């Protein structure tokens, strides 16, 4: 139904911000995890995860109208991928008593940066709030429309 289109778009945005929140929670929870994946009999620490969002062009009619040169509003946003952060190296911590320490006594720790995660956390929270504001504005617009002629 087209009167609820912007509500559906907001809903998709809220869902993806919730997923970002889930990923950040996982990153912060695993800040000290040294055994996340077994690679060739060796434990590898947890790798920081990030979310990639993409515009949801979704339906067939959207593509058709685009091909006809009409610009259409898409169906909001969707999560295209949850990536592993392979660029940031693992942190090396000297702790010879650790069971996962190597011969020199160093332990590989996850490449999670708490500071970065906190910034992402605030960003996700604020985006969520912004979308709620959009929803409320949209609702008050519809409610105002019902007052036409009163």
């Amino acid at each position, binding site marked *: 139904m087209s*009167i609820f289109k912007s*509500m559906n778009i907001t*809903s998709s945005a*809220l*869902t993806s911000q919730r997923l970002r929140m889930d990923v950040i929670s996982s990153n912060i929870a695993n800040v000290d995890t040294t055994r996340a994946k077994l690679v060739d009999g060796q434990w590898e620490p947890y790798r920081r995860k990030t979310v990639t969002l993409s515009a949801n062009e979704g339906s067939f009619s959207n593509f058709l109208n685009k091909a006809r040169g009409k610009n259409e509003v898409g169906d909001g946003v969707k999560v295209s991928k949850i990536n592993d952060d392979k660029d940031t190296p693992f942190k090396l911590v000297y702790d010879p008593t650790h069971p996962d320490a190597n011969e020199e006594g160093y332990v590989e720790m996850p490449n999670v940066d708490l500071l970065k995660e906190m910034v992402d956390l605030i960003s996700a929270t604020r985006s969520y709030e912004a979308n709620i504001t959009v929803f409320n504005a949209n*609702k008050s617009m519809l409610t105002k429309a019902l007052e036409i002629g009163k």
Partner: protein
Amino acid sequence: MAINSISLMTPTQLTNDTNKLSNPATPYEAGQKFASFLNDAIKSVNDQQIQSDALTEKLINGQDVDLHEVMIASQKASITLNATMEVRNKVIDAYQEIMRMSI
């Protein structure tokens, strides 16, 4: 803003209007049309309420459903219900206006 005079109506509009007048529906047909229109509208409102209920139940049962989806569904249901109330009020107003007619 300039106010357009009636003569500026396009020819198609004029013919369409005369077609409508020359081919009136019988009172029975009109009644049926109105009934089915009202029925459809109320059905769609009811669908929104049912969807909202289903989502709420899912949330309470601890199934995989987001809180904001439940809230949005309930808001949609509330807006469609309000719209129905507006239409109902208008219909009842019209009915009462006719019943007040002195014969």
